[in-house]
Structures are given as C-alpha cells and as structure tokens.
C-alpha cells in the first residue's frame, strides 16, 4: 500500500471519528421558537427551546420529560400532546431508518440514533399517558395505554422478569374497575399479586386511587471493568433513596384515617432487570475491534521507533524506509482505534421517580383534597407535607402526588448533547 | 441372445424405468399461464367521445382485472359471479387461486356501474385476501345501490 493511500485512510478514519452534526444543537428561527412557546408554561421555556434545537434525535426524550413536567403542572391537554408525540415515535418501527443503520456502523456512536428509550422508560411513558386518560375519565384508552406499557416490558432477558411491571398491571385492573368490568379487573389483580404480594388490593367499593411518586430516576452510566471504564457497557444505578408517603384520608364523619402508602413499583428494579440488550453484542464487538486496533498500532509504532533507531545508528536507508512504513501503519491503526465508536448510549429520562407508592380507598365526594406527609426510609418524619387535590373523572377519583419536582432542573436531558454543548446556557432568542 | 443384445436391451430397460421414475405429479391447481393469458378478452370499451376509439383495450366490465404485474402470473381468477341480495344490492364473488408454492396476499376493490356504464357509487375500499400456497379464496363485495347497479369491474393488486 502506498504512503498516499495510508494517509488517505488516516484522513478518512479521522473524519469518521468526529461526532456527526445531528448530535449538535441546531439554530432555530426565533419566529418558530416563539410560536412554539406560545401558551406553554414559562418555567419550561428553556426545555422547550432545547427540544426544538435538539430535533428528531432527542424528540422522544424531550417530549417525555416535558410531558411529565406538564402533567405535574396540571396542563393535561398539553401533556397528552407531548406524550402522544413520544408514543407515536416509540411505536414507529425503525426497520429501514438511515440513522439507525449508521449507529450500527463502527465509526458512529450509539447516541447518534433517535432516542426511543429503554423498555422501562417506554413503559413509564405509557403509564403517564394512561394517567392522563384516567384524569379525563377515558378508562378504555387508559387501559390500552397500561396494556401497551406492559408489552414494552416483555424484552427482559430472563423470563421471570418479562411483563413483570406490576404498577401497570394494577392500573389495567383499576381502569377496568372504573369502567365497571369487575371480572376483568379481578383477573388482573390476581396477576399483579404474583409480582407484588404485599400491596393491599382495591376493594369493590373503592372509588379513589392514590399514587405518590418519590425518589429519583434510575441513572444510566458506562460500565466499569477491572482496570478501566468499559464504555460499551450500559449500566443502571439507583437515583437515590425514596421517601415513604403517609396519607391522611378524611371521612364523611369528620374523622381522619392515617395510612402509610405501599410501594407498587421500584423503577430502578425495572431498569436493571432487563438484562443484556441485543445491541450490546454489537457494541462489544466494536470494543474488541477497537482494542485490537490499538494493540496493533502500539506494536507497529514501537517496532517503527526501534527500527528507526537501528537505521539511524547504522545509517541504513532500507531500514529507514521500513521504519517509516511501520510508523505510518501504526498511526493508521491508532487512528482506527480512535475512530471506532463503541460507547453505549446513556441518555436517560431524568425526571422519572424512583418508586411509585399507592393506596386505594373510598373517598366521599365532599373530600376534595388529602394531605401527604413524607417520611425518611427509617420512618422518621422529614417535615415535608403536601395538600393534594382529588380529581374526579367518571366513576373514579385520582390523587397524584410527588415528593420531588417533576420539572427537570436542567433544560437538557443528561448526555443529550456533546459535553461542550451540555454546559452552554440556553438562551431564548429575542423576537424579530 | 448374444451378450451385445443383452447389454442393449438392459440399457433400454434402465432408461425406460428411469424416465418413468422422473414423471412428476404437480399438485392442484395447475395453472397454464399461457392459456390463461390467451383467454384475456380484448374489448373496445366506450370512449369519452361516442364513436371514438378507446385507449383502453382491456379491463372489461363484469370481470376481474389484475392490474399488478407482480401477481399477473401468480394468481388465476377462476370465476366471477354476481347476484342480487334480498335488500336489492348486488353481491359479487370472485374465486381467486394462488398458483404458487408461496403464501400470497392480494387486494381487490370494485367499482359498480349503472346502465349507462357510468360509476353508480364510490369505488369500494381495498379488501385484503389471504391466499396460502396453492389455495383458493373468495373475494366478495356488495354494492351500495340497488336497481341502479348494472355492471361492475374488479381491480386486483398484490397486498403490501
């Protein structure tokens, strides 16, 4: 191979090594930005600007985190719009998508693909869409959402973790209960009990479902090997401890019943029990290729330096050429090592809760709100109390509370842009 | 019988037996595509201007026209019949045969015409027909109108 060819290859590999432009944020016309922000809560304006600037690659991720924030702010119509957009993309089949094809290549990172989330994130998107249907009194579509969420959870490697998303199974049953389908709901409650035997099942007379979300979302990170970080490995870590909610439930005779809500679902458990992804095998292959290229490059560079030294000492022109060839080949191999992109995609939905607690009860129409007190994991009070409204929709009532804010602190989702972009402030462009 | 004659005779016998062993029985349906193609009627249909020549030489009324070259030599329409239902609408049946050893999906739709051969109603929606290997299935469609219906034309294509 001629030196020019070697250099050409080096150039190509170096070009391949750079992050594709779709990983960077795009400039959006201020008119488009302001039209998009119109009528949406100002607290989410920076997040919404990021959504526009990050485009299709992060559309699902941004729609889910903004949808959840809007849901917590009581903007149900807007929240439904965002979740519908996210779910439409999740349900779309990427069978011949060019960006997906690129992400399978050696020189493009997985993060280049359009985000569709891991199964636990997709399932949680269906969970919130289902709650939105419930708050609108549409228990049929709520049931359809929860069912679709359970189906997302069938990808687990080990059979006993497949379709074990107890929260969604319980809610399928509750949606049926509110729609007057007692037999169907009892079947689903029985299925739910296989996954969570401790939760007290809803009684036929119960009309209110209380859901309290505490803790922080699971965190995605690269794996750690014996010696160094294994960037091809996707790992999950718990986001932190989840507080325990204590509920004060008023009754018609003026008395109040204090009960501790029971845990329905641990979101970290769902994230971490999925097991290995099919794509992990491809990433591992990329990592092995990268490692081999690096080793070959090191060997060639060392040999080139040694040969060069010998050539210099003995004034041997042939050895000099040989040394040059080895150095160039070594550089190319090192270029390949640098260009191979083996790291796993660790973008994640960061405003999810860690644990979902729940309780069902009969609350008379006169009760319009309940008090939720948060306890530390050891049962001690931490002084935080919320008064949460009871929403009546159709035959049932729903209470939804959350210990931590659902509006994300940062306008950008973690790892949703290259490092140098993540730290940039998000400015809302002035109107033209 | 000399040795040479025995060898010759044996060779002929072996060849005959081999030839008979090679006889291959095709399961039904056996579709002779050449014969099917020769049956395709070429008709001059009424043109836009009375008396003028029609640019369309095929797609006669009261028949099934296969409009997709991908299934032209794969399916055979055995018959097409139509009858009046008790409510006065027209019900048509077309028996479609999959001549291949592979599963096929076709789609068909019907345009019903009045006595003047003008469309009597909107064309029906495409209806999918599932045809396992070497099987037949029935395409069935109802008209919306009753006494106004005098003719029909079915278009068939591969189902995607």
């Amino acid at each position, binding site marked *: 191979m001629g030196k020019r060819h070697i*250099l050409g290859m*080096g*150039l190509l590999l*170096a*070009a391949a090594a*750079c*992050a*594709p*432009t*779709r990983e*960077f944020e*795009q*400039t959006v016309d201020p008119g488009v930005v302001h039209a998009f922000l119109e009528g949406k809560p100002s607290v989410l304006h920076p997040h919404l600007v990021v959504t526009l600037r990050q485009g299709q690659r992060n559309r699902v991720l941004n729609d889910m985190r903004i949808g959840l924030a809007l849901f917590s702010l009581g903007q149900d119509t807007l929240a439904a719009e965002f979740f519908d957009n996210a*779910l439409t993309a999740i349900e*779309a*089949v*990427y*069978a011949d998508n060019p960006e*997906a*094809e690129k*992400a*399978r290549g050696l020189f493009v990172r*997985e993060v280049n*693909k359009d985000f569709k989330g891991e199964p636990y994130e997709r399932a949680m998107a269906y969970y919130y*869409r289902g709650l939105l249907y419930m708050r609108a009194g549409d228990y*049929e579509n709520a*049931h*359809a*959402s929860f069912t*679709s969420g359970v*189906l997302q959870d*069938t*990808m687990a*490697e080990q059979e006993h973790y*497949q379709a074990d998303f107890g929260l969604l199974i319980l809610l399928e049953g509750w949606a049926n209960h509110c729609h007057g389908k007692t037999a169907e709901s009892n079947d689903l409650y029985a299925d739910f009990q296989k996954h969570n035997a401790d939760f007290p099942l809803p009684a036929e007379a119960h009309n209110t479902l209380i859901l309290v979300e505490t803790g922080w979302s699971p965190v995605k990170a690269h794996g750690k090997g014996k010696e160094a970080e294994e960037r091809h490995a996707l790992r999950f870590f718990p986001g932190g401890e989840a507080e325990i909610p204590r509920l004060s439930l008023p009754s018609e005779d003026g008395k109040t019943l204090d009960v501790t809500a029971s845990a329905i679902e641990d979101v970290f458990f769902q994230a971490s029990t999925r097991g290995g992804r*099919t*794509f992990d095998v*491809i990433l591992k292959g990329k990592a092995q290729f990268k490692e081999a290229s690096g080793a070959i490059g090191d060997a060639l560079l060392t040999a080139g330096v040694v040969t*060069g030294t010998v*050539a*210099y000492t003995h*004034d041997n*022109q042939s050895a*000099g*050429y040989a*040394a040059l060839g080895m150095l*160039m080949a070594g*550089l190319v191999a090192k270029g390949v090592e640098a260009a191979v992109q083996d790291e796993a995609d660790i973008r994640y939905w960061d405003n999810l809760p860690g644990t979902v607690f729940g309780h069902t009860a009969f609350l008379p129409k006169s009760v319009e709100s309940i008090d939720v007190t948060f306890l530390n994991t050891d049962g001690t009070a931490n002084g935080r109390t919320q008064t949460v409204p009871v929403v009546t929709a159709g035959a049932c009532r729903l209470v939804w509370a959350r210990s931590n804010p659902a509006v994300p602190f940062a306008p950008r989702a973690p790892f949703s842009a290259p490092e140098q972009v993540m730290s940039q402030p998000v400015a809302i462009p002035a109107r033209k | 019988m000399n040795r040479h004659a025995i060898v010759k005779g044996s060779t002929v016998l072996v060849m005959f037996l081999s030839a008979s062993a090679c006889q291959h029985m095709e399961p039904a349906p056996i579709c002779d595509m050449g014969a099917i193609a020769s049956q395709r009627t070429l008709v001059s249909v009424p043109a836009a201007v009375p008396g003028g020549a029609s640019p369309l030489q095929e797609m006669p009324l009261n028949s099934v026209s296969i409009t997709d070259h991908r299934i032209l030599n794969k399916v055979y329409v055995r018959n097409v019949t139509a009858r009046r239902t*008790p*409510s*006065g*609408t027209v019900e048509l049946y077309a028996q479609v045969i999959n001549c291949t050893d592979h599963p096929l999906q076709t789609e068909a739709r019907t345009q019903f015409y009045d006595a003047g051969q003008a469309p009597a109603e909107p064309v*029906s*929606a*495409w*209806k999918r027909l599932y045809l396992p290997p070497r099987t037949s299935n029935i395409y069935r469609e*109802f008209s*919306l*109108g009753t006494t106004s219906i005098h003719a029909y034309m079915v278009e068939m294509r591969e189902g*995607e």
Partner: protein
Amino acid sequence: MDVHSLHRSPGNIKILVGARLVWFAIPVAVLLSGCQSVHNAAGTPTTYNDPSAPPPLAQGVGIESQDIIGMTDQMMRDILSNPRLAAQQKPPRVIIDSEYFVNESASRINKNIITDRLRVELNRAAVGRMVFVGRHHAGMVEHERKIKRDGVADKGTVAPTAAQMGGDYRLGGRITSQDARAPKTGAATRFSQITFEMIDLESGEIVWSGMYAFSKSQQDDVIYR
C-alpha cells in the same frame, strides 16, 4: 521540497514523519472543525398520503387509516345488504355512535373515528333506506326545542314533534387484541378484531353482525433491541 534529499540520512526520517503529520493534521483539523457546522439539510416536506394505503413513513401493529377505511366500507356495504335494516317499507331509525362501542384492545384510539365514518358514509349511501338518529347531538336538540317552546326562538319551518326521535336499532361493538412478543428478536405481532352489532332497542335482538380482523407483525432495528 526535495523528498529524496531528506532520505539521505536516517536522521531525517523524523523530519519526514513530522512533515507528513502536518500534512495529515491540517485537513483533519479542518474536518473536525467542520463537524460543528449547521446541518443544513432539508427535512421531510409535508406530503399527502393515500389514507387507504399503509402509511409510508411510520407503520405499527395497531389500527391504521387503511384499516379504518377498510372496515367501515365493509360494514356499510354489509348493512345495506341486510333486508331487516335496508329494505323495510318504513325505514328503520338507527343510532350509530361510540357510546356502546368499547375498546378493550392495546391500541389507543379515538373510537369516534370509526363510528363517525361509518355513520356518515352509511347515511350518504342509504339515501332514505334508513333514518339516522343523532343521539350524540341530543343536548343540542333539547336546547333548541326548549328555547322554541319558551318563545325565545320562533318555531322554525319544520313541524314540531312531541319528543325527539327514538331509535329502533343501535350500534354496539368491541375492539379487542391479542399481542405476542419474541423477547430475543424484538418481533411483535398484534391480532386485532373489531366486531360490530346492530341491536334491536326493544327486544335486544342482534339483527346484524359484522367483523373485521387483521394481524400485523413488526421488528424494530437491532439498535432498539
């Protein structure tokens, strides 16, 4: 630069490599800086699709436009061929809405898209063979009747009736589905079944039934598995 002159002494190898590296590094730097430019490419422009064909850009396993058009067309033609409903001396009064059309499937759907299409198409095709009662507009009718009778509005041109029109038959139905997944391959199959029934509102007899069923499979790209 005379390259051959550099080869005279092995000590010059370093210089050569250095020179080559500069030659190599400059375009690489240019390329790397080019990575951060605006992705100045056109998006997908809005296009009109044939709603009776599978959507070209996104397909799933749920109920799609071509299914809705196919099922409503089939049901409409089937209903008009039923003598109990479409060949009576006195046209029967029919209510078609989503009130008793239940979704028990895994597909999120606005059921009105099916029942509205069926009612509108059927009403246009029936041309008097059936009479359609707008029960979903009952509130609107009641309000108008009240203000006419209260004298707020005049009587209009249509003769007043003692009450709103009662229905003879009403549509009921159910959307159900059965899903199957292959965890290893990510392949998903959904069998969807949509049943339609016309119920006699006096006796409860089911005077007509129709069914539309289909099964769809999909497999996502390996990067999502």
